[in-house]
């Protein structure tokens, strides 16, 4: 394939990856890695390098809109980033100590189960948790409001420490496996901390860029980031994520949840497959 053809096709695929990444809070990597590896026969190292760049592009591109519009919760994001960055360091250290294949396979099964659970609860938004906020969340001024078609809507924040712990796991998985931290981030905020769905996905989206940037130095110095391959990916994902950020404002949470379920199920299958095959 000529470089021009490859660039054009990758650009189109990356547009879609960025769009889905921005809408689900997962980053573009979930779709991009199988597209590159299976669709374009790209070696996994290059694919992971391009995927890492795509996560930073989706995150910063979409977050530039989500933060300005008041969807992402800055305080929650910054606080939880302590756990994700520390977890990522720990995960990178555990490479070679923990068996990666087993971790990938178990993570895959957990994701498939979460996809099933999220599917069952996809209409949860209509009946929010009536309990008062976690006192720690109140002290850290995490309670906030987010835009809805009916105007700004206030929300409560539960179980901060539970969320923090799960974020540590999310960071560890991304350090160890190089992919998939967005899924755990969304689940932690949505299911453990009880945040509104759009706040969970946009805050995850805001955070994943930082987690990814932490590993970028290693990827660059090991030569995983190929300019010709990454150029169309970065540009496509960026445009896709900016478009996704516009769509999210209008979209019904139940539909976004359905998309999320589909994508984490896909990620779960990927992880189980890689774990069994031994190709992580």
């Amino acid at each position, binding site marked *: 394939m000529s470089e021009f053809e*490859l660039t054009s096709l990758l650009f189109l695929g990356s547009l879609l990856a960025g769009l889905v990444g921005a809408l689900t809070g997962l980053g573009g990597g979930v779709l991009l890695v199988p597209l590159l590896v299976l669709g374009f026969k790209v070696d996994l190292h290059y694919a992971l390098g391009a995927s890492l760049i795509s996560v930073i592009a989706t995150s*910063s*591109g979409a977050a530039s809109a989500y933060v300005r519009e008041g969807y992402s919760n*800055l305080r929650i994001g*910054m606080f939880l980033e302590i756990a994700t960055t520390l977890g990522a360091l720990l995960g990178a250290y555990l490479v070679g100590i923990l068996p990666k294949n087993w971790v990938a396979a178990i993570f895959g099964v957990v994701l498939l189960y979460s996809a099933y659970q999220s599917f069952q609860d996809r209409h949860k938004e209509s009946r929010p948790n009536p309990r008062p906020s976690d006192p720690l969340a109140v002290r850290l001024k995490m309670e906030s409001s987010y835009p809805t078609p009916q105007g700004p809507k206030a929300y409560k924040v539960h179980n901060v420490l539970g969320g923090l712990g799960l974020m540590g796991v999310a960071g560890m998985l991304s350090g160890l496996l190089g992919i998939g931290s967005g899924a755990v981030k969304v689940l932690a905020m949505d299911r453990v901390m009880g945040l509104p769905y759009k706040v969970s996905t946009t805050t995850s989206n805001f955070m994943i860029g930082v987690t990814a*940037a932490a590993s970028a130095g290693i990827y660059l110095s090991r030569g995983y980031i190929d300019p010709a391959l990454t*150029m169309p990916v970065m540009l496509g994902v960026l445009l896709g994520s900016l478009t996704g950020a516009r769509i999210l404002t209008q979209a019904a949470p139940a539909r976004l949840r359905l998309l999320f379920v589909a994508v984490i199920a896909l990620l779960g299958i990927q992880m189980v497959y890689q774990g069994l095959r031994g190709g992580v």
Partner: protein
Amino acid sequence: MSDRAMEILLGNLLRLGVILAGLVVLLGGILELRHHGGDIVHYSVFQAEPWPLRSVGSVWQGVLEGRPYAFIQLGLLLLIFTPILRVALSALLFARQRDGVFTLVTLLVLSILLYSLSH
């Protein structure tokens, strides 16, 4: 400064970062495709990128020599720096809000980030 004003500032920083990074990558891409668009490429076997594309200093050297790949790599570096700058600016803004806890939280995240980047 209110949290709202802070959100707008950080949002603008992120937007500026991605637009700048995107333009530099686009420029490098146009230069590259004009000369090599017809070349046959394959990525099925991993060979680590050559050294000039693997560190900040050598990428900058390549940019000064006008190499298209170095321009793309520079744009990608700008993209990587964007979320890091976002954390640094957050620390500054929380300090101006006189929010000691969150200034500390943000500085902690920034130091973990810089530590893992340098390893």
